[in-house]
């Protein structure tokens, strides 16, 4: 028993009653620390609990992300929710079922094997016992720590897991109020923040009279050092004041940035924390080839602005946030405001899809700071659109240089990936600052450069080592100590730029070797799961009939196993290039082992394809002057309905293999498949994202 390794979430939340409770209305309360961020995770976790407990799915009443009532599962990130939280819910549910049935067997003086459960009702050899979870379970069933020693069901017996069950949260979202923005509380005041233009900027003058005039209705100011908020009962007036305010505020200490600082190449020559991961450098003889690829700073660009609500009553602070991690946010807010952590409660509420660490936590802190100054009222902060684009942490620019030493057959015998990037993760618990903390009387110290460890999949190094059968592979990581704008996690971290570089380079090597790119990959790949996907996609996209390069029509393919440990995905893209890229069709195959909800999985895979395509073709955060200047959807365009291709996704049936997280699996392969298809269409390679009309024109002139 001692060698049972519990999933991380169970290690930190051992008691059964943290997770499960039978409620008087014959439902089951399932409490989890992972939250809904548009990925459909709550229905999948509910399916797992219903399966192991043998209750109907609609009896599962799930509570997600609540520091008062749900377990601490850290952040909802890195495609870990099903593998970690799902595994925890499975073990907890199986153990609860076994404990209750074990007691019933004693009561009935029968063997546990004689007992079964039908929608929560207990049967003995198929006959009613008169007992069920709600009548028979008692506090003692929950009083123990979870041991993880009860074997869950075999996948072959699943009735709920593996079925494409619809989500429950979409109905409210298509009929009315559903999001944090829609919460109405008593004594509600609206607030907006006059943002400090940059860390360490100092407010030297604020013309409050001019701002009040712009508001046109009563407003008040909350000011703490360089933190200024406008508060009032009338949201329209508060918003008008906030729009007018920057012109009436004078700041010193604002840096002057240049567009060149916003390019990935700027990191070369900047101070960095350098690491070497993988095989040592060894002398290898042969032809050496290398190429460098890059992606600029990109934004989460959630469709909704960040929003937070907070109430401070009797020394107790209650916060509502669309954060990815309620406990980390609670800890940060409590520490910054000087409150005991137990006196701060954070509830998760749904926000717009952002796929990483955007302004959600910052808006919650904004609201909490103001609430502490105005006790007894609910403070609702909603960022403005330009504030969202201008002040959310963005994903760092990232440059990847790939070098290979080739043998006589022009296959790599030695492989080096070198990465220059800023921090891919700077959550407040990982060296980053919450935005308003930098404006308070005791401001946060400068953020520390940080990236996830290799054990956690790496950040700038994520997917930097390909799974090809090269004799020697390594990553050299130059983690920039500073970035010109705040950065933090966005879907896949370094996986997209690294897979783009590696899989584009593989096409370039294949061309150099005079070998078809798919055949070249397969000749260097013994991973059977990967081979199966590549072969499947190649067959469906009719790769063997691929035309010559340079015709304007391109077909490209790429694959990766996310983090080299989560789901596998292979993507092929067909496109036309005229002045710009027009995607035609996408084929995708994925292997995620046991899939809990195939419809939700497909939604994530397809969404990742479109998100990655948008990033690859269109997206770039513009940096100039005081900071980010791409502050609306015209200057930060994303993919539109008229630009979206047809997508044909196949999920491999592989239920006996462990679940592999797949929310980010298609992200890198899609970018690289587009890169390869554009190169095939043009006969010229574009190595710097985004692949815009200007880049295409430049490439054709070269």
């Amino acid at each position, binding site marked *: 028993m001692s060698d049972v390794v519990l999933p991380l979430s169970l290690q930190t939340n051992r008691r059964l009653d943290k997770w499960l409770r039978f409620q008087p209305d014959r439902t089951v309360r399932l409490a989890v620390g992972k939250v809904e961020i548009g990925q459909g995770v709550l229905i999948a976790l509910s399916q797992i609990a219903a399966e192991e407990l043998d209750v109907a799915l609609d009896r599962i009443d799930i509570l997600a992300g609540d520091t008062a009532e749900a377990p601490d599962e850290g952040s909802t990130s890195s495609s870990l929710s099903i593998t970690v939280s799902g595994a925890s819910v499975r073990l907890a549910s199986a153990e609860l079922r076994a404990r209750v049935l074990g007691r019933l067997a004693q009561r009935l003086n029968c063997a546990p094997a004689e007992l079964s459960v039908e929608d929560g009702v207990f049967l003995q050899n198929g006959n009613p016992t008169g007992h069920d979870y709600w009548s028979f379970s008692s506090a003692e069933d929950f009083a123990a720590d979870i041991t993880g020693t009860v074997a869950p069901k075999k996948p072959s017996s699943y009735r709920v897991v593996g079925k494409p069950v619809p989500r429950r949260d979409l109905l409210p979202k298509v*009929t009315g109020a559903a999001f944090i923005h829609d919460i109405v509380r008593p004594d509600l005041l609206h607030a907006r923040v006059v943002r400090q233009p940059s860390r360490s900027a100092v407010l030297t003058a604020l013309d409050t009279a001019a701002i009040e005039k712009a508001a046109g209705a009563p407003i008040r100011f909350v000011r703490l050092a360089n933190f200024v908020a406008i508060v009032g009962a009338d949201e329209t007036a508060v918003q008008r004041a906030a729009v007018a305010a920057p012109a009436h505020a004078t700041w010193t200490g604002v840096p002057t940035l240049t567009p060149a600082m916003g390019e990935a190449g700027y990191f070369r020559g900047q101070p960095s924390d350098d690491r070497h991961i993988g095989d040592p450098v060894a002398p290898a003889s042969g032809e050496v080839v290398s190429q460098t690829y890059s992606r600029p700073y990109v934004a989460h660009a959630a469709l909704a602005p960040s929003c937070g609500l907070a109430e401070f009553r009797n020394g107790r602070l209650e916060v509502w946030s669309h954060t990815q991690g309620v406990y980390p946010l609670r800890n940060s807010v409590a520490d910054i405001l000087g409150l005991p952590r137990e006196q701060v409660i954070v509830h998760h509420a749904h926000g717009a*899809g952002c796929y990483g660490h955007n302004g959600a936590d910052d808006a919650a802190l904004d609201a909490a700071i103001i609430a502490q100054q105005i006790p007894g009222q609910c403070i609702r902060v909603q960022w403005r659109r330009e504030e969202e684009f201008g002040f959310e942490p963005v994903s760092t620019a990232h440059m990847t240089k790939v070098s290979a030493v080739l043998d006589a057959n022009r296959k790599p015998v030695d492989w080096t990936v070198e990465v220059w990037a800023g921090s891919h993760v700077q959550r407040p618990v990982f060296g980053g600052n919450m935005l308003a903390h930098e404006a308070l009387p005791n401001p946060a110290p400068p953020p520390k450069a940080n990236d996830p460890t290799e054990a956690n999949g790496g950040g700038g190094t994520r997917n930097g080592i390909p799974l090809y059968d090269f004799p020697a592979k390594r990553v050299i990581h130059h983690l920039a100590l500073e970035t010109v704008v705040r950065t933090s996690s966005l879907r896949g971290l370094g996986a997209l730029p690294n897979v783009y570089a590696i899989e584009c380079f593989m096409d370039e090597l294949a061309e150099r070797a005079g070998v078809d790119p798919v055949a070249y990959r397969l000749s260097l790949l013994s991973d059977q799961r990967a081979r199966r996907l590549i072969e499947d996609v190649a067959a469906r996209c009719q790769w063997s009939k691929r035309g010559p390069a340079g015709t304007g029509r391109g077909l490209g393919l790429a694959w990766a196993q996310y983090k080299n440990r989560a789901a596998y995905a292979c993507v092929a893209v067909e496109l036309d290039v005229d002045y710009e890229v027009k995607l035609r069709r996408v084929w995708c195959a994925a292997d995620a082992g046991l899939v809990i909800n195939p419809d939700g999985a497909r939604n994530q895979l397809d969404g990742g394809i479109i998100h990655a395509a948008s990033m690859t073709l269109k997206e770039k955060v513009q940096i100039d002057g005081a900071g980010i200047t791409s502050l609306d959807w015209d200057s930060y365009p994303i993919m539109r309905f008229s630009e979206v291709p047809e997508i044909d996704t196949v999920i491999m049936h592989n239920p006996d293999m462990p679940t592999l997280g797949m929310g980010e699996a298609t992200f890198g392969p899609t970018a690289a498949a587009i890169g390869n298809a554009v190169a095939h269409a043009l006969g010229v390679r574009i190595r710097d994202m985004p692949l815009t009309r200007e880049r295409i024109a430049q490439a054709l002139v070269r």
Partner: protein
Amino acid sequence: MAIDLVVNGQRVSVAVEPTTPLLDVLRNHLDLKGTRYGCGLEQCGTCMVLIDGVPEYSCAREVGTVGGRAITTIEGLGTPDRPHPLQQAFIDEQAGQCGYCLSGIIVTAKALLDRNPSPSRTQIIEALDNHLCRCGTHTRIIAAVERAAKAGAPA
């Protein structure tokens, strides 16, 4: 001053400045939260409503310009208990990820199907092209509108 509106078939009077954005009136004065703030710049489509049957942005539209005109919000289509066939089609297709863009998109789709009950895929895409979706749910959204059209969604 009081402004008279017809919202989802109901006559209402709100005491606001005529320059107040229609979106603020819907959300804060009439508690119709299904119409959403996205950008305030008429760029993203989350605030779309029908004004006399035509899809219009509400985020920068002064309420004083729509006095007496028929305004339809997502709440005017159906309710969670009795969703409109278009809303049901989105549920049936599971055409959402975060869902923030959906209410505006469904409102626009309603106007499309009202004037063209059997739109082509190209016509659906054209109608929805003023709407942004960050999650990449576009193909399912198109399929949901096609499904509603096939089912003959009533006006």
